[in-house]
């Protein structure tokens, strides 16, 4: 920090807060994936292939989620069909 810095305007916002928010979201997402069994990505791909036989959908339009709560596992399949 030199004398010249005092003449420079400080206009950079709080970028650290943005970094923290982005990290919290991505880390939570990746931790969720970590707990999933190894077969989930392949199963998702195969389900997608079956759907593609009938409807034109993208990879992003299908989400597969496995939730473990107590002793009950829920496999949630979410497909966004095109209009």
């Amino acid at each position, binding site marked *: 920090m030199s*004398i010249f810095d005092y003449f420079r305007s400080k206009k*950079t916002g709080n970028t*650290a807060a943005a*970094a*923290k928010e*982005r990290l*919290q979201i991505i880390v939570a997402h*990746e931790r969720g994936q970590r707990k999933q069994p190894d077969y989930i990505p392949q199963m998702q791909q195969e389900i997608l292939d079956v759907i593609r036989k009938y409807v034109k959908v993208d990879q992003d339009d299908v989400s597969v989620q496995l939730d473990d709560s107590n002793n009950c596992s829920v496999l949630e399949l979410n497909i966004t069909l095109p209009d």
Partner: protein
Amino acid sequence: MAKIIVVTSGKGGVGKTTTSAAIGTGLAMQGHRTIIIDFDVGLRNLDLIMGCERRVVYDFVNVINGEASLSQAVIKDKRTDNLYILAASQTRDKDALTQEGVQKVLDELSTNYDFIVCDSPAGIEKGAQMALYFADEAIVVTNPEVSSVRDSDRILGILQSKSKRAEQGKEPIKEHLLITRYNPSRVNDGEMLSVSDVEDILAIPLLGVIPESEAVLKASNQGAPVILDSQATAGQAYSDAVQRLLGDEIGHRFLNVEKKGFFKRLLGASA
């Protein structure tokens, strides 16, 4: 039985080797017989940071392959008593480290040392997994920066699932967070993640915070671990981290902006 400590991070260039050298030296200075092993096959650098690059004759892979004995390959540090170094191989392929081979070397060292510090390569591939597999404790080196924090979280996942302790259902690896290249002034300006931000995200106990310091580059230029520079903030922060690793509860320093005098401000001199 030696305690095996892995220094890991996922991301490269965050200060794993600097940390391995500093922590290993610090443990030895406290009177514990310590060996630092470079697991970065193909990209050996610990020898340079420790200043013993011209004394490497045999390396880790030579020992695993039975081409040299441990006593031939282990280098005794010239500056610090109780400190030893085992260099990584420079030219061999990445598959040179086998789990059986590493196990054999660690078992042999275990009877002879108090601490074995494993300097992990970057990434989450085989080399990094080999470095952490046998660990009792892990120092996760993190810069207050998005990609480093994310990669540290991935490495934590691997520590919790792919280590020997995890596979055998034993007590999990004890995890320590070490934040390096910390710049309190940028944190104040909202330009850098704070210690508590990183702690919130990774949720593991904080071992230490090493401030960004010119002393780190000076130390590596000279091949002397920065912990030996007792004048430097980084050296002092590493000494504190070693004390905490050994169980002492001491407060964290260098978390706030150092107050500068009028002339320092005017002239822009940096500490």
